[in-house]
């Protein structure tokens, strides 16, 4: 116990004497939390619209003003030639072309039917899809208005109609930041755990000071605990900073209990630190350790459901998400912060995470040798 105390003293001193580490620990979360949620805004708005109007009728003008008034579209240009509109798409100025054919209004009135043409820049598939969907629904609305102009619907509706009402729970304003901030917090905590811990140990290897510790009577588990505990504490500190920022900047206060968040984070950090330790036992210099943890972080982050929904991944990728600790914490964070899930809801997650912690740490301890 006394040995451990001294080792911890050494580690904390080392961390706090290194201004670079302090900067990484305290500045990085702030920067990321201040910037990332603003950047990671997938809400589709401000779609640049280019209108090619061959008709110049009342209807075409009404439609355009309805589109621009919707808030989703911004009129980038309004021309009479398709080539001009196409050029603005080529230069990424416009995302969507709406072409109103000749005699659009006349055909609609006389022949009861008329067609509008749309061309979407589909390089970004999501945006193309949603943009087209918005455009279509606004055109449908417009269609309804036109119909009302011409036909007086009787009070008793002869057409069968199923009314669909939709409501959005937990995030009624559809604010994307509510979705991203809890996820980004997880990434921050993970970075500190896996990244910094493994770098710290490998650094001792690289500059040779680990030899000095290896020749002392310090026990293996003392050394490992001495390395892990400071980062475990740091991880929780960063979580606290992050939660504070999330509240101060974005007004996100967890709907669920703080205790549940911290409880899970404590277990999660054990698992992630085990991973960091494992990385450090497999690498011999900082460059390798960094590259390896970077590589793993990348795969973990991409396959964690942070950006894209896990349900839509192919089966093999879903299996990877299951052996990815980050997935569970992101899920838990979103559940607790947004939906107010309680301890009972996340119990399976906690059990799995305990399993991760046990496996990773045992593996790392077995693999750690006091000889080089």
């Amino acid at each position, binding site marked *: 116990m006394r040995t451990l105390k001294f080792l911890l003293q050494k580690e904390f001193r080392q961390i706090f004497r290194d201004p*670079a*580490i302090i*900067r990484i620990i305290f500045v*990085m979360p702030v920067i990321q939390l201040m910037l*990332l949620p*603003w*950047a*990671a*805004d*997938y809400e*589709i708005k*401000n779609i640049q619209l280019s209108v090619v109007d061959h008709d110049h009728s009342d209807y075409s003008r009404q439609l355009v003003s309805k589109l621009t008034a919707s808030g989703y579209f911004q009129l980038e240009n309004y021309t009479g030639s398709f080539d001009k509109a196409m050029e603005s798409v*080529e*230069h*990424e100025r416009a995302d969507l072309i709406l072409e109103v054919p000749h005699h659009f209004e006349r055909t609609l009135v006389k022949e*009861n*039917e008329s067609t509008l043409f*749309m061309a*979407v820049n*589909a*390089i*970004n*598939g999501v945006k*193309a899809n*949603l943009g087209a969907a918005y455009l279509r629904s606004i*055109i449908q609305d417009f269609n309804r208005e036109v119909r009302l102009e011409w036909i007086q619907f009787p009070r008793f*509706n*002869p057409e*069968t*109609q*199923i009314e*669909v*009402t*939709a*409501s*959005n*729970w*937990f*995030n009624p304003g559809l604010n*994307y930041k509510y*979705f991203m901030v809890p996820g980004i917090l997880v990434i921050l905590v993970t970075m500190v755990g896996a990244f910094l811990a493994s*770098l710290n140990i490998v*650094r001792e290897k690289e*500059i040779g000071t680990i030899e000095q510790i290896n020749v002392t009577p310090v026990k293996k588990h003392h050394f490992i605990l001495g390395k892990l505990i400071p980062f475990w504490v740091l991880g929780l500190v960063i979580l606290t900073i992050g939660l504070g920022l999330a509240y101060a900047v974005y007004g996100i206060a967890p709907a669920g209990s703080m205790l549940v968040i911290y409880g899970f984070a404590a277990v999660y950090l054990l698992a992630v630190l085990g991973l960091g330790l494992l990385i450090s036992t497999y690498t011999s*210099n*900082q*460059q*390798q350790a960094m*590259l*390896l943890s970077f590589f793993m972080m*990348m795969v973990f982050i991409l*396959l964690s459901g942070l950006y894209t*929904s896990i*349900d*839509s*991944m192919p089966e093999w*990728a879903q299996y990877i998400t299951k052996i990815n600790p980050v997935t569970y914490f992101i*899920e838990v964070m979103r559940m607790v912060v947004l*939906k107010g899930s309680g301890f009972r*809801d996340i119990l399976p997650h906690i059990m799995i995470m305990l399993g991760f912690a046990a496996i990773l740490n045992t593996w790392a301890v077995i693999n750690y040798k006091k000889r080089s």
Partner: protein
Amino acid sequence: MKQFISFIKKEFYHILRDKRTMFILLGMPVVQIIIFGFALTNEVKNARIAILDQSNDAATHSIRAEIEASRYFEIKKYLHSYKEIEKAFQSGQISLVVVFPQRFEQDLLHFNKAQVQLIADASDPNVATTLTNYASAIINDYQNRITNNRKLPYTINTEMRMLYNPQLKGAYSFVPGVMAMVLMLVCTMMTAITIVREKETGTMEIMLVSPIKPLKIVVAKAVPYLLLSIINITSILLLSVFVLDVPIRGNLALLVFESILFTLTCLAFGLLISSSTASQQIAMFISLVGMFLPTVMLSGFMFPIENMPVPLRVVSNIVPAKWFYYIIKEVMIKGLGFAAVWKETLVLVGMLAFLLALSIKKFKIRLA
């Protein structure tokens, strides 16, 4: 010259003998392409949903069957009361609840009007919107079927054409992005770290007292990484063409030229970082925060730039990857020529010149 070549050889040995690093450096683009290409789709399918059917009649049954049959939905649960909805959401099992009120079919038959309520878990706003849209479309189809597809008067039809990427594949937008990311990682981060590493372990001192010019030492360090990047560019392009079916519509030579230009810019940035830092951890941190994060965030490939607040949009202009991403998209996907990207190319050249000048000026022959 002979000295220079033997220095380059030395660097190659450094890299080649470190099998793990080599493996990761060459494997990274492959793994990224596969993950981005196959695992990450923004398409929503197999969403787990629940049904609260208070009516339980023929009409709701056939709507349920249609929802079940669609590839977007997978009915996971049948609820029995409103109270269960919140619990079901909280346990994280489902993302949408379809609620049929009592007497659904009767209302439909007698009043020609009935209601369905969709409740989405909007934690993920886009998924919520998409699911609501899909479910409404299914219900709409059902309605059309029972009214025998009678056509309404004064109908505006819409015809849609998807330009460049008719199947809406995600690959089209991320292949250029992965290129930018990998190049930056290899060139900026790895270069910066190898140089700083020699400083940290003290071997830099030995090299600086050798008769070779200091600048050559540094350039010799960069050459192997340039070569590695070219290998990576090749493998990314091959993978994207043959595995992901993303065509190269434009001129290949132009594409390669632009990639090398970007690679050089990254190398220059790496040199700059290495000459202003003394420890690997700091070098790594700076390349991560100064280069990698901005590339991922502000180049437009992960996150749409036009949605960002003005300050971020302004900052995005000094990120080389943004320009590179734009160029690659125009050349590779849209098939445009040099005339369409000369301005952006010029920006990259300017950045390269600036970074090189700065790093040469900051380069010190003596270590502190």
